[in-house]
């Protein structure tokens, strides 16, 4: 029996290796794609009036100026505090709420509608109200980021729980595991891929929320750099924080992917990433 499994593993490994060697590494393809975009942007961006658009080399120069003056780092530091506070709070609240709603039908019936509705909430319209409640400072920014990031995490966790195979829960039941133990030791690990997908989706929403908060409450951080340079028709500088934020989102995404492979290694092993 052991021999059969070994042979199977070996053939699987051999199959996985052969196409790997012939294929171009993914990062080279990504790098080539980015290079193409930058070249085209550089060529055609130069023909546009610098108020209406910009191009990579001008943005790079603006970036360097912001770095040298220290403006970029202080703005980034200012922005990241409410960003991470709100985002982490959304994870800490969203996952347990999603688990409970997904697992218990009473909780689902009582709270599910608020989560579904909350996802579609026009948050920008509510910012003035939030300012009345929480002021113009740090707290309101955390609240805006939290409210934007919470719902994708919560909904994904909830959907993930409903997708847990019934038989796995019956394994818990047949060994007389209490509800809480089934939730923590069976439902939670089985839901992890969905949770991580929600946590990833929330990164983008949290970045948008952070900029919204900086526009509509006290103008601060990277949002302030965007507004000030836009008001001065300095389009190249305006692009710097936007690109920094997008790069940061990409970085966070791969960090989450790394964490996912650490906490749920079995998932990457089971799920096939074999694609054309």
């Amino acid at each position: 029996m052991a021999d059969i499994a070994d042979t199977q593993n070996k053939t699987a490994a051999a199959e996985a290796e052969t196409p790997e060697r012939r294929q171009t590494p993914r990062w080279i393809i990504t790098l080539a794609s980015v290079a193409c975009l930058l070249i085209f942007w550089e060529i055609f961006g130069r023909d546009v009036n610098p108020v209406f658009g910009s191009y990579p080399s001008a943005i790079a120069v603006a970036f360097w100026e912001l770095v040298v003056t220290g403006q970029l780092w202080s703005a980034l530091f200012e922005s990241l505090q409410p960003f991470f506070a709100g985002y982490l709070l959304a994870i800490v609240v969203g996952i347990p709420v999603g688990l409970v709603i997904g697992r218990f039908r009473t909780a689902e019936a009582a709270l599910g509608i608020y989560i579904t509705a909350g996802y579609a909430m026009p948050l920008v319209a509510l910012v003035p109200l939030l300012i009345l409640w929480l002021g113009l400072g740090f707290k309101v920014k955390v609240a805006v980021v939290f409210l934007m990031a919470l719902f994708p995490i919560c909904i994904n966790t909830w959907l993930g729980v409903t997708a847990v195979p019934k038989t796995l829960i019956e394994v818990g039941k047949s060994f007389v595991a209490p509800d809480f133990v089934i939730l923590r030791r069976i439902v939670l690990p089985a839901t992890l891929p969905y949770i991580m997908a929600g946590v990833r989706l929330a990164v983008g929403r949290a970045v948008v929320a952070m900029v919204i908060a900086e526009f509509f409450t006290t103008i601060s951080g990277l949002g302030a750099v965007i507004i000030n340079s836009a008001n001065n028709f300095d389009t190249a500088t305006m692009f710097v924080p936007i690109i920094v934020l997008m790069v940061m989102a990409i970085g966070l995404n791969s960090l989450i992917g790394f964490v996912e492979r650490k906490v749920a290694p079995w998932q990457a092993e089971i799920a096939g990433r074999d694609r054309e």
Partner: protein
Amino acid sequence: MGEVSFHDVSKRFALRMDGELHHVQALDRVSFKVADGEIVALIGPSGCGKTTALRVAMGLDASTAGRVTVDGREVKGCGHDRGMVFQHAELLPWLNALQNVMFGLEMKGLRGGELRDTAEKYLALVGLSESKNRRPHQLSGGMKQRVGIARALAIDPSVLLMDEPFGALDAQTRESLQAELLDVHARTKKTILFVTHDLDEAVLLADRIVVMKHGRVHDIMEVPLKRPRGDLGIVRGTPEFAETRYKIWRELHDDTTVVH
């Protein structure tokens, strides 16, 4: 100890099909007994209620009338006096073989060294000591089901309940696991109630075979093969095996009311 009794167990399902409510009588006054240390097979065409009967005995489904008792105590929900082996093993994919066996034991309250030692002992019983660190997807189908059996046996239940445990395995693996199950039974003397749709398996393993049809017990048959059964390949060649197999085959096919 490990005596299971079904006393007039009935179960009705309400099923909504095409907007109409249908009532399905999954079990209709099912009564039979499994003696301590006995192996009993539940066999019948699909939809005959054999799996439902097993699930009611496990406590995963409730009966609508009648009761199941294990050693005289009425079954109300799941309990550590019964160990369940699922059709597709149903190991937790994030735990390795040893941790899967430990899971059931932890639920029973074992901790520390006792927990680990017991789990290792039962993995050794099914011959998987060397694969204890493998996660389910690194195990073959037969190895997974062995872990499933070890997990159920480890909690030392009075009764082992098995739902088509070898149904999803290839023929060769199935044969070796059938022989191993008899070996485990000889060593542990556990009462075993198992569901199967495989006539050969029922005759090879069971002391008695409960034939079910349309949610009712159609017949209960003794298997005239003595224990230990020895080489199952040889058992297959005996006239007793052929005769019993044919008798059950006739019973399963002798049904004028069912239109196929």
